[in-house]
């Protein structure tokens, strides 16, 4: 096809042809590559001027068949897939998956490991909420708060780097605990963060929370009632913004969350402003949980006694036959797993992140399904933006924190 295309070749595909802009109603493609859709989503909107009359959402642009890939992988290698779900808070996904396997093999987790996990998960939650809230700011046009909060998120990523060597796709921890203790550098970074962050966070809060333009923009933008939210089986901050105090950490405590004292903030309208506020308050609560966990941290090993899943120290592999056998089996992915069916969920960055696992005793799961909160939120998206303006549609998407990686798995 070397002939030059002429204008008439494009006439039929004209954007502004009569059928697409017939009368007052135009069809507008919001996405898949649009700066407002953080990730690859397509929304086909029917608009009358600025007002959205009808919306159709499309999923699957970055579907990577994680659930199918998981059926071919040994259990300890599936963790890397979970990194890529909600990549803003990978450690929660990793640890949630580890806890699912622990539930399946029925192993006892030392208290210290649970507390260490709580610290990591709450840091990840702060990082996730920071991204979401600062991006709400960006989508309303206030870019400055975003740059402040991203510097703080970098500090959290530095801490993850201390723990596991990676920043974004962390693959953090192991089934049964952590591969090694937190380093002193991690603790000093954490101390610095806990000291500096609240003041900077308050500055960010001041920039937006009581800003008249911001309030006008976000209040009543993309609202959802508690009933509708429950019908869609919303969870996490988006459900709490609608006024339902459901939090997996309290309703179904895991990893010793029952030991900590924290508040579950709830909103009333389920609009963008409430979602923003719920996340802001959760960041403060997460900080308090981290402080409590640091204070109460018990002594003990940093991993459970699960030699089937936990690589022995290299020196022992050379000297000890048992260690060599375990090492070989783990590396070759031949760990024994009981037959069974488990569901475990954690409070992820943006909702209840569930792992439904069926094991037939083989080297890989028979079936592993992720309950991905973003997938659920995105179902409600057209309903939430119908009757609103295009600006609201953009804000609603970012305030629900729909992340393409988690949406499409």
């Amino acid at each position, binding site marked *: 096809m070397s002939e030059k*295309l002429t*204008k008439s070749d*494009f*006439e039929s*595909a*004209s*954007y*502004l042809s009569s059928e697409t802009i017939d009368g007052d109603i*135009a069809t*507008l493609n919001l996405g898949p590559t*649009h*700066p*407002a859709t953080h990730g690859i989503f397509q929304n086909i909107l029917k608009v009358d*001027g*600025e007002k959205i009359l009808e919306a159709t959402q499309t999923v699957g642009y970055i579907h990577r068949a994680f659930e199918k890939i998981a059926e071919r992988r040994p259990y300890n290698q599936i963790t890397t897939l979970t990194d890529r779900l909600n990549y803003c808070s990978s450690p929660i996904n990793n640890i949630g998956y580890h806890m699912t396997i622990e539930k399946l093999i029925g192993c006892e987790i030392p208290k210290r490991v649970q507390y260490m996990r709580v610290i990591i998960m709450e840091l990840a939650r702060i990082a996730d909420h920071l991204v979401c809230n600062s991006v709400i*700011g*960006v*989508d*309303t*046009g*206030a*870019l*400055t708060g975003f*740059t*402040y909060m991203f*510097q703080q998120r970098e500090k959290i990523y530095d801490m993850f780097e201390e723990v596991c060597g990676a920043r974004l796709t962390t693959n953090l921890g192991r089934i049964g605990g952590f591969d090694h203790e937190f380093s002193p550098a991690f603790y000093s970074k954490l101390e610095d963060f806990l000291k500096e962050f609240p003041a900077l966070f308050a500055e960010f809060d001041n*920039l*937006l929370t009581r*800003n008249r*333009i*911001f309030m*006008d*923009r976000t209040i009543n933008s993309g609202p959802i009632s508690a009933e509708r939210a429950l019908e869609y089986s919303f969870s996490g901050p988006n459900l709490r913004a609608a006024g339902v105090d459901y939090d997996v950490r309290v309703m179904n405590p895991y990893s010793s969350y029952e030991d900590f004292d924290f508040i579950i903030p709830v909103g009333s309208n389920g609009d963008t402003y409430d979602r923003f506020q719920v996340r802001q308050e959760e960041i403060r609560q997460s900080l308090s949980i981290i402080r409590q966990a640091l204070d109460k941290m018990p002594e003990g090993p940093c991993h459970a006694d699960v030699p089937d899943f936990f690589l022995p120290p290299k020196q022992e592999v050379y000297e000890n036959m048992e260690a060599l056998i375990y090492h070989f089996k783990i590396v070759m992915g031949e760990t024994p797993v009981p037959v069974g069916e488990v569901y475990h969920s954690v409070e992820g960055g943006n909702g209840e992140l569930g792992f439904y696992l069926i094991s037939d005793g083989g080297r890989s799961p028979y079936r592993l399904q992720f309950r991905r909160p973003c997938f659920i939120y995105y179902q409600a998206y057209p309903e939430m933006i119908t009757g609103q*303006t*295009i*600006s*609201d549609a*953009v804000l609603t998407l970012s305030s629900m924190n729909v992340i393409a990686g988690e949406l499409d798995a």
Partner: protein
Amino acid sequence: MDGGLLIEKLILVVALFSITLLIAMYSTYLERKVAAWFQDRIGPDRAGKWGILQPLADGTKMFFKEDFIPLNSDKWLFILGPGIAMFTALMTGSVITWGPNFEAFGRTIVLQVADVNVGILFIMGFVSIGVYGIMIGGWASNNKYSLFGAIRASSQMISYELAMGVSVITIVMMSGSLSLRDIVDAQHGMGWFVFKQPVAFLIFFVCALAECNRAPFDLAECESELIGGYHTEYGSMKLGFFLFAEYINMFISSAVIASLFFGGYNFPGMDAFSGNTLAIIGTLAFFAKIFFFIFVFMWIRWTLPRFRYDQLMHLGWKKMIPIALVNLLITAVVIAAYNGWFNK
């Protein structure tokens, strides 16, 4: 016709043209530095010392980019759009009084390209034509996002021009002239109109933000919703023209705000000077005011979120225009009472 006058005006036009372009260029640099300062960043620092050559590098880049015209667009209008935007932006500088009269070569040089007796109307008129550049550019792109940007820009500019015009009328009533020179002269020393007409100033300032498409009224480009708004499809120097026109408009708006409300080249204690010293200090004072307002424009942009389209219209029609009208009425009554017209 006086040959000296011709040369004088020619030099002034060329000087004004280059100063406007230079200031617009360095406003882009300043904007990035100011933004970086607000956001804990460094900003451009690679081209030259402190990145001082960054605007040149940007300009060069834009000239050497492929001059792309979408196949399905209206080619001539697509080119005309940025042309109009740039032309109108550059024209408005011609009636602004840049400083007190200057004595040189035995003649009095007026630091104003043209002392039009309806100077302020001239500016308002050209600003109104400026919207055609955006509208034509956005429409000719044949892209819905561009069209949205163009519609938003034109409706926003038309609505805010009304309030702007009404607030200017109060100034005209107080100075008794439409000529910018007379308006500036009426604010001798510290008799700036901002003290007498603070409401008109606020309205004018907000409208100036809207007219320049600056945050919080930058709905026309609104990168998070409309990608680039009216200039989504533009590239190379045509995009450069649009961006440049925006910065020139910002410069001119600052100059108009300084002239109408902050005394132009007047400064406190100006009676102690005379002749060329006064001219030089006056001109410097005027530019200091202009740069202050350019900075305020940037300050606002990097602090505030933007409005939604309906809120913008709401603010324009239901708040700004009524306030401006009431202000106009009060001003009229006060002027009439002051002049004793009610006693007749």
